[in-house]
């Protein structure tokens, strides 16, 4: 589920770089009739610590988490790992980038990717002499 590596392209904090866990969050993608909706489980991520970026046709989500226990707490039983979330997707050219919207509720991110309206096929008149 998790891998330990440096985040590619993530801004490096000025503090001494510490290795952090990065998780690939589970997602659902479904068609709501007007486009696609993406939901991702990002427990521990708040609106302030979530970056959602569309560059060219790549959608990248990066959620930074804070430790779930105060400093000095000793982990005595572990069944899951806490880590930042990173996942990216290639958007098809049909997605209307200007209308992409997102909200975060109870640790679940929902991104709405509306389909751009397609122009009607245009019939080209062929003139004959």
């Amino acid at each position, binding site marked *: 589920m998790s891998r330990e590596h440096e985040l590619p392209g993530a801004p490096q904090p000025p503090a001494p770089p510490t290795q952090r866990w990065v998780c690939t969050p589970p997602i659902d993608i479904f068609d*709501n009739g007007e486009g696609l909706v993406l939901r991702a489980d990002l427990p*521990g991520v708040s609106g302030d610590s979530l970056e959602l970026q569309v560059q060219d046709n790549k959608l990248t989500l990066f959620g930074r988490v804070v430790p779930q226990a105060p400093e000095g707490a000793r982990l005595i039983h572990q*069944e899951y790992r806490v880590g930042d979330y990173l996942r990216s997707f290639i958007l098809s050219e049909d997605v209307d980038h200007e209308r992409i919207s997102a909200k975060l509720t109870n640790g679940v991110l929902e991104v709405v990717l509306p389909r751009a309206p397609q122009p009607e096929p245009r019939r080209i008149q062929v003139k004959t002499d």
Partner: protein
Amino acid sequence: MAVFRWGSALDAFRDMEREMDRVLRNMDLAFEGLRIGRPHPPVNVYELEDEFLLTAELPGVRTEDLELSVSNGHLVLRGERSDPQPLPEERYRRSERRHGRWERVIPLPDRIRDDQLGAEFVNGVLKVHLPKAPSTQPRQIPISEGTS
């Protein structure tokens, strides 16, 4: 890129399926197989000076759908993640998130003041505070000397 688009716009839309992190996802799926049968939700337990802290990740669960109780020295976590808009399966391009009811029963150590538990649920992370009972004095057990 095709100059003329005669086909359905939907077909092109399906290209979104192509993802950057395919390799990483495959690793996840391999791991997913191992995860089947594991109790849900997974929990972590930390020890602090005056309490134990139990944490669980429950994204998408509403506070009103979460129930915590203590009985007979066991902490019972019960809840449900409901699907806000259930759709037929064919609408899904990818379905990795699970929904439904779950319950988990966790035995508590004796050293807990189970009448003083506290819990908070923020951004899909549940934290249950389990205050430690004041340590009891070691008790000497007198040994009587019998006559043989």
